[in-house]
């Protein structure tokens, strides 16, 4: 069997140790060589700072709460629904939506790296990428939920989804009680980022 010959090959050690200087050096090299235009970097930063974030996922969840036909289509083939909504893209090529019920609470992790549904939730928060979340979510999800202030009833099973392939998972949280009169737009405000990862619940409206 061939062996992984890159093991002792770490050219990055030629860069200065300070990460800010490393980034500056790579930016200088790649832009001067004409490989990357600086505006391409701005485009990426602007996309995930200002255009793509958890508001996309919140729209999907609120619509699923309000519209049974949409909800059924979403649970059957979420990728097709995302294409219709314009929420398809990098790190969201294969989407599966998993629904929380009284019987099952879903929670998403990527133990091997930090796979996350970017077109629906944006870039992941620091805790999602942390060693603590990656190591503990699969072994003790209820203790992790406690870190978020969430306690589930004993009748509810926890199902943790470890994103080991290119399938990206979005949790459809339970619709909070007392929201029957709210329209889709009002419901969107109750859908937090964490509720769509499964480390939180949707907010209860303040009267």
């Amino acid at each position, binding site marked *: *069997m*061939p*062996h*992984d010959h*890159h*093991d002792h*090959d*770490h*050219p*990055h050690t*030629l*860069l200065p140790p300070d*990460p800010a200087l*490393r*980034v500056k*050096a*790579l930016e200088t*090299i790649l832009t*001067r*060589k*004409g*490989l*990357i*235009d600086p505006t*391409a*970097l*701005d485009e990426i*930063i602007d996309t995930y*700072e200002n255009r793509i*974030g*958890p508001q996309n996922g919140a729209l999907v969840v609120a619509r699923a709460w309000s519209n049974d036909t949409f909800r059924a289509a979403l649970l059957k083939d979420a990728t097709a629904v995302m294409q219709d909504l314009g929420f398809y893209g990098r790190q969201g*090529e294969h989407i599966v939506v998993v629904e929380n019920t009284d019987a099952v609470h879903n929670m998403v992790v990527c*133990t*091997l790296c930090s796979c996350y549904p970017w077109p629906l939730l*944006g*870039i*992941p928060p*620091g*805790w999602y990428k*942390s060693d603590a*979340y990656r*190591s*503990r979510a*699969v*072994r*003790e999800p*209820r203790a992790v939920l406690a*870190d*978020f202030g969430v306690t589930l009833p004993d009748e509810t*099973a*926890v*199902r*943790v989804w*470890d994103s*080991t*392939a*290119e*399938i990206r998972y979005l949790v459809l949280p339970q619709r909070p009680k007392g929201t029957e009169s709210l329209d889709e737009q009002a419901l969107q405000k109750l859908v*937090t980022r964490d509720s769509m990862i499964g*480390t939180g619940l949707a907010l209860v409206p303040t009267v």
Partner: protein
Amino acid sequence: MTRPHDMGGRFGDGPVVPEPQGIPAYTADWHPKALALTVAAGALGKWNIDTSRHARELLAPKDYARFAYYEKWIAALADLLVTKDLVSTDELKAGTAPAGGGAKITAASMAAALSRGGPASRPSDVSPTFAIGDTVRTLRPAANRLVNGGHTRLPAYAAGATGRILLYHGTHVLPDSNAHGLGEAPEPLYTVVFPAAELWAAPEHPNDEVTLDLWQSYLEPA
């Protein structure tokens, strides 16, 4: 057989610290640029997502543990740029390079690449041998069978475990092959569900479960 990224189930990492909802704020000035450089360089098409994941996994365990998240990204990016002959070691040392031709990745081509994404589904000659509900066992040890120490997506905590096929996703690129330039080798991909008690000595609750997305060659009938 493991590498430092394979940390599912590990003890000793402390609490998870929640953050405000919404779009996460960057915690250092260089973070957004580190993210953007990595994503833009990926669009040059000299490597695939499996190669770039493996480049991060190849960091020395002591560096993987002490580097901040985006530090891993830029270290792996520098390694890939040299391995794929886009940047020389002299250029890395100098921190600059002679001016080259027109920019290959522009704002417009980048925006198009972000919307287009990179689906992993491919047609394949390999037929699914498992059906929804079948009982399967994962390989043990969790390791790349094509390249010793190579990339794989079967975590160590789930090696040799018995579970049930929950979902079938069609045929997808096999990372164990694709990360090493050995071809996409698409094959059936399943979601397999495992009782927590199958994976952990002290599961928190008898009804809890963990699912993993696993390729057919990671599985055998049980």
